């Protein structure tokens, strides 16, 4: 590069910077001292000055056209409805991975246990839990009034399983036959079926729980037959606090323990004050064809709790219209999540690609 072997690259840099007036005072003074003494250095400075003058003689080139921007140039493509920021792409990618993960997990779960959700026995535990919550208002009704309990025993349904599979159905049927002898219901207060129409799936089970609870305490005779039910009913009554949130809890309703006492009192005092609880079969438009009322329980509360002629509350169970779409939603959830995740992943990729292109 250098035409003067005795000049270093640093010397040329000093000369170049000196020409532009960018040396500091100390460097400038030192270089000028050298220039005064070194002819070769002065020659190189002159050659460099000519070079700079030549390059600078190249004038600016007039732009061949007008580069003013139009609105179209600065707008994002119209089909692009997403922002192309890094944050958006990252968020979309993260959401996509999450959705794909959950979708895949759900899909694997469904494929390994396809009947899990529809099996009558599969989720008894959950159903019982729901029953414990829902039973309380029903028990309150029993205590406060002389109740016509209409127990609709729901046979196995794909959507709502009956109560605990451990309870033999025939026993409930026996109880029905027995208790339905004496039946006089006055001042029947009917719990409007509509109130149950929007009940959660546990509502029917709750009615079953009610039956289970009432059976052994109101009539000693069929005790053996309904013994297992008693245990189940007691278990259901063991969560009054949970039940207190029930929507149709009547005022002054005692807790489940009081109901239990009332029931025991009824057993002790025999059947003197007993009023029958009658169950009639009511066909409801929403009832499943597989359902049939099978249990009628007679329940006599203690006089201590029925000082005034008690109104009778007739609970007409109804099979609350359980939307069958519940199963469908579960079936579509996993593919839906996967599809959404893949779409989001594509969005993240496209926005990233556009951002890179714009740089």
């Amino acid at each position, binding site marked *: *590069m250098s035409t003067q072997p005795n000049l270093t690259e640093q010397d040329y840099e000093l000369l170049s910077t000196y020409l532009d007036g960018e040396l500091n005072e100390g460097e400038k003074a030192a270089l000028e001292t050298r220039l005064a003494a070194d002819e070769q250095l002065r020659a190189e400075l002159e050659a460099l000055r*000519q070079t700079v003058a030549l390059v600078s003689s190249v004038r600016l080139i007039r732009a061949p056209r007008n580069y003013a921007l139009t609105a179209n140039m600065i707008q994002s493509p119209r089909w692009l409805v997403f922002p192309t920021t890094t944050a958006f792409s990252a968020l979309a990618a993260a959401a996509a991975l999450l959705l794909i993960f959950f979708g895949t997990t759900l899909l694997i779960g469904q494929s390994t246990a396809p009947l899990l959700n529809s099996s009558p026995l599969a989720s008894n535990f959950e159903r019982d839990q729901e029953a414990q919550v829902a039973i309380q208002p029903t028990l309150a009704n029993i205590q406060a009034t002389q109740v016509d309990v209409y127990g609709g025993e729901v046979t196995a349904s794909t959507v709502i399983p009956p109560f605990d599979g451990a309870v033999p159905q025939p026993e409930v049927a026996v109880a029905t036959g027995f208790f339905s002898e004496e039946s006089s219901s006055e001042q029947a207060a009917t719990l409007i079926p509509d109130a149950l129409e929007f009940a959660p799936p546990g509502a029917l089970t709750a009615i079953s729980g009610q039956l289970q609870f009432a059976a052994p305490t109101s009539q000693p005779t069929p005790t053996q037959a309904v013994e297992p039910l008693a245990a189940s009913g007691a278990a259901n009554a063991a969560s009054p606090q949970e039940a207190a949130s029930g929507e149709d809890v009547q005022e002054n309703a005692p807790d489940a323990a009081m109901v239990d006492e009332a029931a025991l009192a009824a057993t002790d005092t025999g059947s003197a004050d007993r009023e029958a609880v009658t169950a009639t079969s009511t066909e409801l438009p929403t009832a499943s064809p597989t359902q049939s009322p099978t249990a009628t329980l007679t329940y006599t509360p203690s006089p201590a709790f029925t000082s005034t002629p008690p109104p009778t509350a007739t609970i007409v169970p109804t099979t609350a219209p359980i939307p069958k779409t519940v199963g469908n939603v579960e079936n579509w959830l996993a593919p839906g999540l996967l599809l959404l995740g893949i779409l989001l992943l594509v969005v993240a990729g496209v926005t990233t690609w556009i951002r890179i292109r714009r740089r």
Partner: protein
Amino acid sequence: MVSNLENEAGLIRSAQRGSLDAFNALVLYYQDNVYSLTYRIMGESAAADDATQEAFISAYRHLKDYRGGSFKSWLLRIATNTCYDELRRRKRRPISLLDDMPGAESDDGPALPADSPTPEQAAQQNELNRAIQNCIQSLQVEQRSVLILSDIEGLSYQEIAESAGVNLGTVKSRLSRARSGVRQCLQAVRELLPSEFRLKSADD
């Protein structure tokens, strides 16, 4: 080129608030600078045209990143980076530019008018321009851009450092090497230059 831009700061503020008209006023003022830079770096008019348009679009989109200082150097930095990106892309995917090589007769776009040049002077200047352009084009791209920003665009070292995104020391060394390179190049073609432009070499 417009001799002076009144209220450049006001135009920039308006543009930052989204005024396309204000930004276009800046475009019209600086487009010769930007085009000259892109042309000198890219070496051919079609690429310079694309790079210039891209640079202005990019500048508009990044206006919020402008934090004051020389708007010209900020704009030229964007133009320089646009050229770098294009050159890198070409390196990955080489294309033929046989009919648009630097120095071709139709390539060196219309220079800004000088003070009433004679036809001979204009021809001389065109020949000189082509020779200098060829020599600039022979430099490494980093040296090339620093030389253009300094000796053609007239930026200070500090502005060049901002435009090129390097420190002052790098600017000095790159500029020195670029000038030495151009000097050698022009000496090789000195017989093509008008006599008053012929550089003295060590042999003279």
